[in-house]
């Protein structure tokens, strides 16, 4: 079991190397290898999730044992939260890779696409597994550099400009994170996350730590596109090829933004009420302004990108409420409910936003446009796309049998129980505006009359694309099962527990 942990990084990394080397020699090698590797890691991560081995699973690279209780090796740590994130990355990654088999065929340089795709996944898997701060930074850079290149993959004016903007903002964020890491190292003289958690419990310099925390929050907030830092996201996510938009919006901003924020602020730093308020305010700002920016958009992918900001606001809000309650020493049950709601919404958002971007890609593939006004009447022409898009729209706007309803319900319930009535009201209002916005998408894209004559000849997308979309639509339904107590305890609660442990994370990893 332990020896399998590095495979999550090794397999995609090896594929990223092999694809450009061998793709010219063996026909179809690139597309099938990428999908196969993603499928293998997906099975591996699902097996880790369901096998119920006692968490955390620790893999020490090179077998370096701690000396005098001080860890000197590089650790890979798979606890509840990491395994949950791994499942999201690999499952959405597989579906996006499989979808690309048809979608990317129209681009040139296919093999580079798959190589970069695998590199990005290797980076994200590394981020969620890394047991020390510097490796987290290195893997983060691997995944974002691959994503810079993927955003510019179309090499038209718009893609290049979006990629440049993304790189300048991303570079700034990386430097802020690096500065935070340097300051933390200065204070604690260690980089291992568990060790930092232990050392920080004894350090009294609160102001210094607060400054470091703000730096890291700004850095990872930029990566997660929370609202004051969001300017790059709508351009980058809408300019990328659609399977990559699905990966960026569905997975990347969570794996390198939200995951890092939750891991650092729950498990490493001592919880602080000020920081918790900042997180809540960032979350609610993203939630509210994201949806208002989204509703006026006529470019389908830009609209979806703004909704990503808004939905990430829900996740951050849920996690932030949990953080505040824990920092105040309040009711543990409510805190656990809030965090569970946040993480549940994170899982759901990966699925439905991934699906919506794949739908947008399918529409673009057949009609060649992203403008809502130029579509219409696609319901008859593309039944699979239309049906899956309807289910994803209902999921994101919180209509009952779909998963989005239950996660929003948990977050709103936790907000009410924690006496944050105003935030609960905001969450409900934002959900209603989301519904309005997606009714607009459905009306203009799929129903209504066909305005253009050339739309009359289009047909449904090829098998690989419709397969991915159908699987994701089914996941939208199946994931709502996570609300039921037995299943929730098995899948979601280990992740929540690993955050609720707070500072004990260090004790547990280092084993004393």
């Amino acid at each position: 079991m332990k020896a399998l942990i590095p495979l999550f990084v090794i397999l995609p990394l090896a594929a990223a190397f092999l694809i450009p080397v061998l793709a010219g020699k063996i026909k179809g090698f690139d597309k099938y290898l990428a999908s196969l590797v993603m499928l293998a890691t997906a099975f591996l991560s699902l097996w880790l999730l369901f096998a119920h081995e006692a968490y955390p699973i620790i893999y020490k690279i090179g077998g370096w044992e701690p000396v005098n209780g001080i860890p000197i090796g590089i650790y890979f740590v798979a606890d509840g939260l990491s395994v949950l994130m791994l499942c999201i990355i690999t499952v959405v990654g597989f579906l996006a890779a499989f979808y690309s088999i048809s979608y990317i065929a129209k681009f040139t340089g296919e093999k580079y696409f798959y190589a970069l795709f695998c590199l990005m996944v290797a980076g994200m898997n590394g981020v969620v597994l890394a047991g020390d701060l510097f490796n987290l930074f290195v893997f983060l850079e691997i995944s974002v550099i691959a994503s810079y290149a993927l955003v510019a993959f179309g090499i038209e004016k718009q893609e290049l400009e979006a990629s440049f903007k993304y790189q300048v903002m991303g570079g700034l964020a990386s430097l802020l994170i690096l500065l935070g890491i340097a300051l933390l190292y200065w204070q604690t003289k260690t980089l291992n996350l568990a060790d930092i958690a232990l050392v920080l419990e004894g350090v009294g310099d609160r102001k210094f730590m607060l400054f470091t925390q703000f730096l890291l929050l700004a850095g990872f907030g930029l990566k997660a596109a929370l609202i004051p830092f969001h300017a790059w996201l709508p351009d980058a996510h809408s300019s990328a090829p659609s399977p990559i938009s699905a990966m960026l919006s569905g997975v990347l901003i969570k794996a390198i933004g939200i995951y890092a924020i939750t891991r650092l602020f729950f498990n490493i730093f001592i919880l602080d009420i000020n920081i918790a308020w900042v997180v809540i305010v960032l979350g609610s700002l993203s939630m509210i302004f994201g949806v208002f920016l989204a509703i006026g958009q006529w470019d389908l992918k830009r609209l979806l990108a703004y909704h990503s900001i808004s939905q990430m606001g829900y996740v951050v809000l849920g996690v932030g409420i949990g953080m505040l309650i824990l920092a105040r020493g309040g009711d543990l049950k409510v805190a656990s409910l809030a965090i569970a709601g946040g993480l549940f919404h994170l899982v759901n958002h990966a699925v439905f936003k991934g699906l919506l971007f794949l739908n947008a890609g399918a529409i673009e593939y057949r009609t060649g446009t992203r403008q809502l006004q130029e579509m219409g009447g696609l319901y008859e022409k593309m039944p699979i796309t239309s049906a899956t898009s309807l289910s994803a729209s209902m999921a994101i706007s919180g209509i009952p049998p779909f998963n989005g309803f239950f996660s929003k319900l948990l977050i709103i319930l936790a907000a009410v129980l924690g006496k944050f009535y105003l935030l609960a009201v905001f969450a409900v209002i934002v959900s209603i505006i989301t519904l309005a916005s997606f009714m607009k998408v459905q009306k203009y894209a799929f129903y209504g009359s066909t305005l253009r004559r050339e739309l009359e000849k289009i047909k449904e997308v090829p098998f690989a694309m419709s397969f991915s979309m159908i699987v994701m639509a089914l996941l939208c339904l199946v994931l709502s099962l996570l609300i039921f107590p037995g299943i929730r305890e098995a899948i979601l609660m280990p992740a929540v527990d690993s955050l609720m442990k707070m500072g004990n994370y260090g004790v547990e990893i280092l084993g004393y």
Partner: protein
Amino acid sequence: MTLFVLCFLLFLVGLYGVITRRNIIKIVLGICIMEYSMNLFLVLVGYVHDGVAPIITKGSERATFVDPLPQAMVITVIVIGLATTAMLLAIAIRLYRKHGTFDIREINTLKG
């Protein structure tokens, strides 16, 4: 302390370049300068007063060593910086070919 202040000034120089310049290449240079200041800061964090390079040779077993870990980190950060700079410049060249200019005011079409 002076060194840290100078290092911070270097960071601000880079930030000023990124924010105020209109030329893509100058923005890239600004990011590079910020990166160098970060590397410098990492080395300074590991510096011990009167320390020597952490290599054990005959006669230096008892000497004060500087912290080698930040130096190892700096090497990694330089390599990452190489990748980001190469990527930025590649995009800059592509942008120049499409627009025939490096001025971001003329390139800017997205609303963000």
